[in-house]
């Protein structure tokens, strides 16, 4: 519905299009299909936050709009941290440019540069002008869908604080700011494509999405804190030559000039730069970037086979130590198979990393903030008699298990779940061994390094007196991992597609998985200062580890789905 409105709007200057040799029938056909496809594709903003569902997406346009509006809310904080309006607008435009670039950079690959065009549109009798215009209009419509809701809250805030003219000035300045952002995105794209191969390029986009979503999360957490901080209150951005090199300052200066025109040289030059630079940069894009860009894009799409064969590819020589580790920690061949498979796939699958690293990022941000907070309230040295320090130490230790839970909860999923036929056609007597091997790999890969680092930090900062507590803590992390695996890891490794169907049970399992670490941490907290109970509990924890790990490995076929999942 909303797309039809955009389509009408885009096609208004029909006769002008025809004059430059565009076939408007074809243009309309291409555009309407593109918009229809956009509507059925999950938006990048949502993708970064929500997990994939098997349900077909429709009405994604509204999703994009709502998500953008939410993002826009983050950065109206700019108007409340300081009273200095130039600083306010510099912060606001910085956020605007960053968020817009981040949103579009992911969309550009999936939505705007559709390589299928090469097969579908190019072989048809469609003129170059038509294709070009359809692309431009598509980009424009897409940007509008993101930008309007993104800026809405800012416009309203400025309207309330500074009045109508200020709002109009801001609205006008979004145009050059957007053009400049598009230039930035193009520059990044060209740079990345110059430096790497198309395959790596996809990896780059994927890691970018992860960083982006972590950044959003961090700013949601940080922004309210910053609002109260005295530091920003006093800080103003200086009006000097060096700040004129920062793009957001151009637009902030231009806004100052537009709302209250004066002879201020700084604001005048900012205004001029803010108009000239975007135009200049877009010209650069069209003249210099676009041709090499298209050539590179053709490489991503068309001749992929050829480039791949020709390229000398990275070799993954078997790491002897991984195999040695596998033989060392596993008992049977099937367990070893599970170990090696999990070890290799977790390190390489982009899909897996996409699902795991945002969670890790959130945890790190969360941990950082909580450490930050405790440190502020107890600004004494860490000592074992202080409740605050004990909580800090324990939360550091028990933080590991949240990271492990993240990993374990994802191990049975893969976008290559169809490859799980291998578990059904091979003579596996006790499939539990496969799970146990897989869990062991996750523990060796994710738990051990973290446990080692935190233990080292603990011993260095607190001294050997912390060792019994560290041992109990680490053993408990292991126990939590095994218990979670015992409860939740019920499918073969990488054999299932993420779906929303079994939400009910997974929710309860998720709840339990959160409760176990808290419970253990609480018990640990109660006995923290008493060495004997700690040693007893440590012994119990080790025995429990051994028992549960063993019972995972003994799981028989009746615990597993008997049929191979094909769809």
């Amino acid at each position, binding site marked *: 519905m909303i797309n039809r409105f955009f389509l009408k709007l885009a096609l208004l200057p029909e006769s002008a299009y025809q004059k430059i040799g565009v076939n408007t029938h074809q243009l309309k056909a291409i555009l309407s299909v593109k918009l229809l496809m956009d509507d059925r594709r999950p938006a990048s903003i949502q993708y970064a936050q929500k997990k994939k569902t098997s349900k077909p997406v429709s009405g994604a346009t509204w999703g994009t709009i709502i998500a953008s509006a939410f993002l826009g809310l983050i950065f109206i904080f700019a108007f409340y941290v300081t009273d200095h309006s130039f600083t306010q607008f510099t912060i606001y435009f910085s956020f605007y440019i960053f968020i817009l670039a981040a949103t579009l950079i992911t969309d550009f690959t999936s939505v705007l540069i559709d390589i299928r065009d090469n097969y579908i549109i190019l072989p048809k009798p469609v003129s170059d002008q038509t294709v070009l215009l359809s692309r431009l209009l598509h980009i424009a419509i897409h940007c509008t869908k993101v930008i309007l809701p993104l800026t809405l809250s800012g416009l309203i805030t400025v309207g309330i604080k500074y009045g109508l003219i200020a709002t109009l000035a801001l609205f006008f300045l979004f145009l050059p700011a957007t053009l400049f952002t598009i230039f930035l995105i193009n520059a990044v794209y060209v740079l990345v494509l110059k430096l790497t191969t198309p395959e790596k390029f996809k990896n780059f986009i994927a890691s970018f999405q992860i960083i982006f979503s972590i950044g959003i999360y961090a700013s949601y957490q940080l922004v309210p804190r910053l609002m109260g901080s005295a530091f920003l209150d006093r800080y103003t951005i200086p009006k000097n030559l060096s700040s004129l090199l920062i793009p957001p300052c151009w637009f902030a200066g231009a806004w100052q000039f537009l709302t209250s025109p004066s002879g201020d040289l700084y604001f005048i030059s900012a205004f001029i730069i803010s108009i000239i630079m975007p135009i200049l940069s877009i010209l650069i894009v069209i003249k210099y970037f676009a041709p090499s860009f298209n050539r590179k894009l053709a490489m991503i799409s068309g001749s992929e086979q050829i480039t791949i064969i020709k390229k000398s590819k990275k070799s993954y020589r078997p790491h002897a130590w991984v195999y040695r580790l596998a033989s060392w920690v596993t008992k049977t061949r099937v367990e070893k198979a599970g170990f090696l*498979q999990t070890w290799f*796939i977790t390190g390489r699958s982009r899909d897996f990393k996409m699902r795991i690293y945002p969670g890790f990022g959130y945890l790190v941000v969360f941990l950082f903030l909580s450490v930050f907070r405790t440190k502020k309230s107890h600004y004494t040295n860490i000592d074992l008699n202080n409740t605050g320090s004990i909580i800090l130490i324990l939360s550091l230790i028990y933080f590991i298990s949240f990271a492990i839970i993240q990993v374990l909860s994802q191990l049975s999923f893969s976008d290559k779940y169809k490859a799980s*036929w291998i*578990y059904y056609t091979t003579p596996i007597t006790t499939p539990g061994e496969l799970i146990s091997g897989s869990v062991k790999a996750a523990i060796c890969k994710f738990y051990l390094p973290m446990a080692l680092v935190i233990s080292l930090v603990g011993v260095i900062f607190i001294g050997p007196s912390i060792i019994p507590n560290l041992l109990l803590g680490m053993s408990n992390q292991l126990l939590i991992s095994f218990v979670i695996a015992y409860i939740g890891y019920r499918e073969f490794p*990488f054999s299932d597609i993420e779906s929303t169907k079994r939400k009910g049970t997974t929710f309860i399992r998720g709840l339990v998985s959160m409760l176990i670490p808290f419970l253990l941490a609480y018990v640990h907290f109660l006995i923290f200062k008493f060495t004997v109970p700690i040693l007893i509990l440590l012994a119990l924890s080790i025995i429990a580890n051994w028992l549960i790990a063993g019972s995972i490995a003994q799981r028989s076929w009746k615990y597993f789905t008997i049929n191979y999942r094909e769809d």
Partner: protein
Amino acid sequence: MANPIISLKQVYKNYGHKEVLKGINLDIQSGQVIGYIGPNGAGKSTTVKILCGLISDYDGSVHVNGIDLKENPIAVKKMIGYVPELAELYDVLTPLEFLGLMANLYEIDEIVANERIHKMMQAFGLSDNMNQRMDTFSKGMKQKVLISSGLLHNPEIIILDEPLSGLDANSVIIVKELISKLAKEGKTIFYCSHMMDVVEKVSDRIILINNGEVLADGSFHELQSQQGNNSLEKIFAQLTAQETLSDTADQLIKAFDN
């Protein structure tokens, strides 16, 4: 006749209300090359999946070498090598890692397995690619890895589901040769395919199924004597198409009549 190596008796399988297999009866002798053909949705894949252990909730009985598949699936799986249709595999692994995984799951002696893997990769011309991730491989290269994975434990029975898809002309010849050499070694081969000309050439016995039932069963010559001296392609069309195929083509041409 000797005891059949594969025996299906009254095998039924439903997906919900849809009956995919309606009582399949088959006895296959050791050392035969079976061409298993049928249109899409005929129940070909379902039969294969039951035999390999991918589907275990079927009705009826399946015996392999006298062992009931439902009672002792592990023993049956040890005898069977399966090469699936379409390259479904964990393609972030390298061929060496993937085949190593399979060797672990079949519990083949590590030294033996390693030697076999290297020899097979070399024979398929993939020696240089052994340590590269398979996500950069062409369909044919993946198919070669899959064929190797199915043969790795030197099984008595080999089930091939469209093994030629994606292979180039020379590799097709290699695989056809391989099939007849394996048959000479006394292996039983269950070959599922759409490619009638290949089935016609490699199979000792052709089984045609449609709508979950066996329509024709016999050597190519037997089928020819029943159905007229035609190519397998023509026989297939006679037995499975509702209308004659040239009528369909006529209708397609008539679409231009406006």
